[in-house]
């Protein structure tokens, strides 16, 4: 007994003095330094609460708050002999939970997940030695910290013991947002503490092995329940859904635009990508669906000049027959596609106005009604189709508006469909929505979109349409909710380790196109800079496989470096372009390099005043380290607009010491030597193209059109040309006029984005990059002495 007390005392001291604990010699491993307790909002030391029972072995137990997540805890147990350990944890009014049993060892580390905020838990270890003798450790206590402040308010509308239980994940579709999880009582017990690139249709999918699949902006990430990244897929722009196949390939939904009958149509393309990003299969809606069918308001909706013809929103892979279900919201169809041939096997939905070639693909509905503008179609364990039927009012003129979850039983031999069940959601939702079959046969419904009101409802119902569980999330839109069961949460991590490995993102920072980017710790701006030192990032416009350095000398190998200190960002570049030189007869037959250094504020703040950009010389720089000039030439050229008057090459700039006047177009259009379709993602929102000398970013001119970011809408300038067309003799500034009504962009060609951040936009027309500065001007004259003159 004295020994036990001594060890327990040692455990108490662990949080204070690691060096004196851990036993003697190698028999008792010490807790790694990186598990040293770190202060959290409300950390509590581990203290013994009750005397040990039947404890016949020597052990220590250390309990600490997780250093990054207030709803997790880290527990370390050491034993003097090889043992198996599991943990029990509980709090007042909360049922006890027991973790998996660890492998036989003398050191056992656990991360406890699913704790409520500001709650004191008692934790004990069950220790079984090699003789199968089990002892229970003294109880340890831990008080969790506070929730992040951005957590929306959740109300438990209905709770029932019949609930399948577990953690229900969701995230707001309004960025910035975060993935959260609540337990059966509607209490927060989980959130993702890492910063991840949230999309506007944020989704966590729970895989059968307990891994979590995050659908992020241009990325799919696999994590475990503790938030640890297991694999990352860097993706091209995709929308709404991604499906992980058993071979670790991904199916993703992408968009494409084609012109048919004089109209631009936005359709969908399904891509199958390997973990390395290679496309191994694709299916285009334009190749298989009727481009003259526009069954309702959604299909006729025109955004950015393009009809939202298909607006697909879900994929579901059916392994047993190797087919894919595609949910097309605008067509109000669920389309079953043969993964091998690409042929359509069948179409679930109203065949009205469908083209003749597809007419034999439809089912005859023998009972019930067809869905309209649906989401999240899936094949259930019963073999029927379950989906969330928004029933948009515009699609159902004259009908009562209600959203529902509905099941259809299909007979693919007789080609008949029967509506076998429906559950009307507690609110009408004109968009968003999800439905999942839980392991006990219950159905989890997400009525999370805007509609009757602004709250999101997540409901669990049983097969008799009894509401089992129901939460309401105040003033929040939720695209999809997902449930993970406690048995999966408490399972050993080895379950996850046994899964086929998925290559992680290559070391370093890679953008969605595969372009390697710079990576500098503590300098987020650097991550937007292209690593031009990487030959793969060279734009081979003339397709000769050679760089400027190959042709004109090594001094033309582009170099760019970025460093940060507390207040500023310093960019150093030799000014050599990472794209082919074109000889336009302007001052020399070969390109040139130089030595440039620009210093800009690291965290610029928006000012209430505007400052004119320098009339001549550098006003900003690209993420490839090339200078950006303003929208005019010099006096000898009448301060004319170089875009309409001058000689700019295919990339939007000119001369030997290259500088841009126009958007760096070649970054978005031509292949790189490394095989990327373009250096930076084309026609995509939130792409940083450069930085102005006041520190604000200059963006590619695209913004998301809607919450789901189905379309990236082009941002246009608010300047109108007022000249006569005599571009060569017109001062660019005197012949453009700012008109507030033309676009959201201000006089400087910038605006505050959806996340509240100010940026300039590289528009198609004058002023091309920026017309003035809205940020701090402290550094500008250092970079260009003509500023203010």
């Amino acid at each position, binding site marked *: 007994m004295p020994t036990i007390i001594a060890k327990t005392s040692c455990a108490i001291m662990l949080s204070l003095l690691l060096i004196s604990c851990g036993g003697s010699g190698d028999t008792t491993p010490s807790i790694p330094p990186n598990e040293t307790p770190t202060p959290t909002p409300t950390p509590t030391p581990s203290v013994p609460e009750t005397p040990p029972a039947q404890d016949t072995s020597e052990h220590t137990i250390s309990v600490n708050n997780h250093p990054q997540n207030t709803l997790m805890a880290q527990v370390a147990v050491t034993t003097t002999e090889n043992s198996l350990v599991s943990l029990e944890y509980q709090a007042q009014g909360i049922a006890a939970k027991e973790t998996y049993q660890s492998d036989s060892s003398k050191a056992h580390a656990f991360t406890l997940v699913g704790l409520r905020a500001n709650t004191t838990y008692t934790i004990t270890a069950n220790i079984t030695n090699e003789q199968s003798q089990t002892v229970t450790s003294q109880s340890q206590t831990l008080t969790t910290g506070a929730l992040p402040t951005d957590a929306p308010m959740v109300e438990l509308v209905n709770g029932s013991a019949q609930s399948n239980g577990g953690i229900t994940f969701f995230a707001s579709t309004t960025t910035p947002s975060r993935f959260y999880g609540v337990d059966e009582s509607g209490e927060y017990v989980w959130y993702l503490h890492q910063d991840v690139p949230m999309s506007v249709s944020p989704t966590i999918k729970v895989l059968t092995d307990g891994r979590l699949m995050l659908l992020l902006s241009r990325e799919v990430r696999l994590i475990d329940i503790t938030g640890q990244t297991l694999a990352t897929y860097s993706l091209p722009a995709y929308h709404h859904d991604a499906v992980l196949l058993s071979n670790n390939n991904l199916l993703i939904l992408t968009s494409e635009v084609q012109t048919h009958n004089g109209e631009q149509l936005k359709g969908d393309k399904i891509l199958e990508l390997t973990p390395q990003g290679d496309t191994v299969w694709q299916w285009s809606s334009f190749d298989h669906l009727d481009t003259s069918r526009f069954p309702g308001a959604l299909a006729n909706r025109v955004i950015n000049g393009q009809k939202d013809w298909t607006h697909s929103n879900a994929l579901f892979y059916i392994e047993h027959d190797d087919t894919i279900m595609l949910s097309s919201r605008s067509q109000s169809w669920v389309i079953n596609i043969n993964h091998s041939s690409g042929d359509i096997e069948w179409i679930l939905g109203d065949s009205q106005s469908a083209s003749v070639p597809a007419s034999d693909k439809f089912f005859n509905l023998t009972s019930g009604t067809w869905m309209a503008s649906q989401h999240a179609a899936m094949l259930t364990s019963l073999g029927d189709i379950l989906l969330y039927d928004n029933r948009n009012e515009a699609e159902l003129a004259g009908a009562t508006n209600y959203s529902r979850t509905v099941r259809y039983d299909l007979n693919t031999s007789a080609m008949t469909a029967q509506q076998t069940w429906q559950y009307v959601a507690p609110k009408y939702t004109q968009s968003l929505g999800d439905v999942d079959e839980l392991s006990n046969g219950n159905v989890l419904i997400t009525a999370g979109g805007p509609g009757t009101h602004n709250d999101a409802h997540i409901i669990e119902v049983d097969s008799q349409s009894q509401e089992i569980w129901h939460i309401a999330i105040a003033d929040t839109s939720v695209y999809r909710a997902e449930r993970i069961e406690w048995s999966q949460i408490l399972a050993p991590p080895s379950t996850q380790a046994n899964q086929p490995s998925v290559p992680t993102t290559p070391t370093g920072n890679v953008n969605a196109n595969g372009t390697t980017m710079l990576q500098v710790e503590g300098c987020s701006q650097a991550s937007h800079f292209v690593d031009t030192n990487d030959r793969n990032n060279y734009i081979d416009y003339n397709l000769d496989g050679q760089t400027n350095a190959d042709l004109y000398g090594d001094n033309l190998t582009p170099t760019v470096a970025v460093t940060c200190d507390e207040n500023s960002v310093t960019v150093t570049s030799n000014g050599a372009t990472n794209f082919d030189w074109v000889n336009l007869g302007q001052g020399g037959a070969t390109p040139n390099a130089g030595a440039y250094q620009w210093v800009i504020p690291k965290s610029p703040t928006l000012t209430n005043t505007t400052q004119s950009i320098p009339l001549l010389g550098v006003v900003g720089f690209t993420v490839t380290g090339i*200078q950006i000039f303003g929208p005019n030439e*010099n006096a*000898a050229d009448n301060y004319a607009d170089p875009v*309409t008057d*001058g000689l700019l090459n*295919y990339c939007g700039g000119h001369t030997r010491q290259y500088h841009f006047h126009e958007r760096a177009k070649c970054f978005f259009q031509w292949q790189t030597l490394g095989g990327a379709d373009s250096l930076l993602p084309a026609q995509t929102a939130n792409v940083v193209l450069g930085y102005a000398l006041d520190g604000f970013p200059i963006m590619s001119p695209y913004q998301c059109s809607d919450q789901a970011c189905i379309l990236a809408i082009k941002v246009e300038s608010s300047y109108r040309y007022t000249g006569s*067309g005599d*571009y060569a003799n017109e001062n660019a500034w005197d012949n453009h006029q700012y008109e507030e009504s033309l676009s959201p962009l201000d006089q400087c060609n910038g605006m505050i984005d959806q996340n509240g951040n100010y940026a300039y936009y590289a528009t198609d027309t004058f002023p091309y990059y920026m017309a003035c500065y809205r940020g701090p001007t402290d550094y500008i004259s250092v970079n260009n002495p003509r500023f203010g003159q």
Partner: protein
Amino acid sequence: MSRLIGLVLLGLLCSSTQSLAHGDEELLQIQKVRLQLNIEPIAANFIDANNKPVTLTQAYLSLFSVEMIRCPTLPKHVKRRTSSNLLNWIIPAAYANHGVRFDKPTQIPIMQSFNLLTPTTLDLGELSLPVGHYCEMNITLAKNSKPLLAEQGVNVNRYSLYLTTNADAKINANYAYGKNTFIALDISDKSHELTLAINPAKLFTAIDFGQSESHIARSILLNFHQQVELN
């Protein structure tokens, strides 16, 4: 003030050029050379590189300038004096004039769009070429600011290349593309007349029109200089 500075800098540049043109090492003899442009019309219907029939409904190319470039024969010290470092010192490159100006007697501005479906014969003007050997010729394609040349509502002058097909393809580029091509031209003290002959027919049949429109345009620009001869 800026204009004054510009003029001063321009004067410095001109004096520098003068000393180059009339250096100690050689006295340059200038020969006037007339230059004519001939463009062979292309057939509106042809078979492309992918054996697919193509019908052009519009085809315009905009030539910006042509320049003859002497073989490098200047003494080394003169070369050094013309290095970019010296020019940079005289006129900081960041503020140097590089817009639409033609101040080289070896260069002729064209700045005009040509209908490739019809034959073109045009007197481009007169070059002032120092007697000697010429190894390269620069031809630059670029849009121009000539008055509206409207074709079906489109001002084709605003494109360096503008094509439409009966399949509703609109193939265009509005950026400049220039390239030096090798020539073997001797300018003596005798009178010269040169012809810039462009035969785009082979250019178009060598292109796969199944590519995306922007890639077709690039392919045409990249291959254009192979279809130019100086006679």
